[in-house]
């Protein structure tokens, strides 16, 4: 346990083990906050407070990048200030026009020089409107031909073709390397796992420096005169690595679930085994390459090549090759 105490009470170790993950967490949360902030505000104005229009707006679920505000008064200053990306003002007699299929110039669309992506919202609101218009049109045709059915009945009947599911559903199957997967369940965690592996790899390099120190000060020689003295030291070092990696990955799992980053247990388990392989690999390198500079040059080069290769494979710039599997992170992609 003296080895554990000796390593863990070092200021540098504490800094690497505690401060670094905190900095990383802050960075991730800031990144998330920035992503949340990146929402396009649009304003929809109904000066006449029409019930049909309110029903339409209820059906307009707030689409992912947009933040929709519904008002009764037109405020063009908010557009000029950049508070909103665009303003859509609905015309009077909305209900009557929709029922008659008269949809031209139902809205007045205000935009400014800085407006960029508001066109997407226009398409979105138009699609929802078209659905209502089509149902009204269908109801009108049917009631003209069949007097015994009510218009509202046909209008409601038309809903089954639009809600709650699309008219057709397609079964998606990917065809390529590996097994066929259902895309709906595929979640990409590669970059996060790579990030964690990269941190742990550097951490292990740091911990191997203690073995070098024990070698240089002849501590290993001193221990080797005792039965299994050297083996006990290596065993203690390996156990420490195992415990630290387990704690770090458990922490990652816990924190990611708190931050709504759903890391699968299988992905974390794979990462755990790859980290253990990394520990063994670095220990073997350390035993073979007793020169610290050579060890650092080789392991850092491996680290860089692995990260670059992972990214190239992940972005599908290069195909996975057999030799790529010598690089640990490629197993994560």
């Amino acid at each position, binding site marked *: 346990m003296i080895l554990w105490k000796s390593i863990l009470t070092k200021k540098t170790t504490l800094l690497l083990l505690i401060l670094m993950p905190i900095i990383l967490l802050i960075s991730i949360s800031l990144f998330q906050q920035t992503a949340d902030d990146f929402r396009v505000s649009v304003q929809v104005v109904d000066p006449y407070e029409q019930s049909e229009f309110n029903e339409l707006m209820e059906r307009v679920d707030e689409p992912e990048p947009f933040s929709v505000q519904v008002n009764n008064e037109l405020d063009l200053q908010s557009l000029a200030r950049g508070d909103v990306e665009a303003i859509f003002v609905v015309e009077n007699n909305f209900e009557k026009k929709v029922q008659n299929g008269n949809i031209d110039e139902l809205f007045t669309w205000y935009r400014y020089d800085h407006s960029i992506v508001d066109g997407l919202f226009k398409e979105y609101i138009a699609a929802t409107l078209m659905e209502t218009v089509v149902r009204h049109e269908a109801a009108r045709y049917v009631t003209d031909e069949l007097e015994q059915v009510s218009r509202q009945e046909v209008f409601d009947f038309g809903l089954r073709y639009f809600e709650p599911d699309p008219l057709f559903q397609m079964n998606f199957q990917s065809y390529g390397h590996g097994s066929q997967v259902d895309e709906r369940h595929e979640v990409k965690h590669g970059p996060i796992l790579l990030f964690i592996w990269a941190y742990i790899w550097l951490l292990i390099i740091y911990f191997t420096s203690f073995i070098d120190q024990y070698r240089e000060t002849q501590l290993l020689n001193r221990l080797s005169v005792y*039965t299994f003295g050297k083996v006990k030291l290596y065993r203690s070092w390996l156990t420490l690595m195992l415990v630290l990696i387990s704690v770090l990955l458990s922490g990652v799992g816990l924190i990611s679930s708190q931050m709504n980053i759903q890391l699968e247990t299988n992905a974390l388990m794979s990462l755990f085994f790859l980290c253990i392989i990394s520990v063994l690999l670095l220990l073997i390198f350390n035993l073979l390459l007793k020169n610290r500079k050579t060890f650092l040059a080789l392991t850092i080069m491996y680290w860089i090549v692995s990260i670059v290769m992972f990214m190239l494979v992940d972005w599908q710039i290069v195909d996975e090759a057999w030799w790529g599997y010598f690089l640990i992170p490629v197993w994560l992609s």
Partner: protein
Amino acid sequence: MLQLNNIIYKNKNKMILNGISAEVKQGDSICLFGPNGAGKSTLLKMLAGLIEPDQGVYKQDKLTSKPVGYIPQQLALFPNMTVKDHLSFYKKMTKQKDREFIEAMSNALSLNEIKKKKVEELSGGMARKLNLAVGLIHEPDIIFLDEAFVGVDLAAKHDMLQWLRLLNEDGVTIVLITHDWHVIHHLAKTLWVLEDGRMVDQFSIENLPQKAEEYKLVDSPLNKMFAVQN
């Protein structure tokens, strides 16, 4: 106790030990002496069983099951751990149960006063004493000291020499490397003189004055060493 017969050891094709033959008997106190690069540390490590010869025969009588005591030149300690942590760790590691011995050694080396201090807070002499103590904690029958007195102040050196002499008088064998004539004078009984990986002489400490005279006539680096130090 230990026997070396025509030992040859090479490192990267460089001859480090060249045909060394010698014997270490129980209760001996041998000083390996010679200029830098003579192969003293390598021979000491070989005697301690830390490295194997490339050629030749190395025999160790299994008179005792206790491990040897090895005190390296460097401070083989954990810098941010206390003196007490070290003594406890080596006590457990060597399964030493004789508390009296540890207490006596701690007293003799004045370690009790600094038990709570970390190694990085110790003076050079104190750290050397701890370096010695952890190597002797299991009461070895044979002790190997590689320049264990470098940078030690007179008071610390006195404590260390006193304790080692006491152990030697009790039958513990000592093999050491030092260039300190004070240490040689107080501890060594026999000198092995090495040069370029060869054993050039072995003699008793009583013959040192004559040998010093003799080496002054030989054209070798040893000449200077004896001349200056004597």
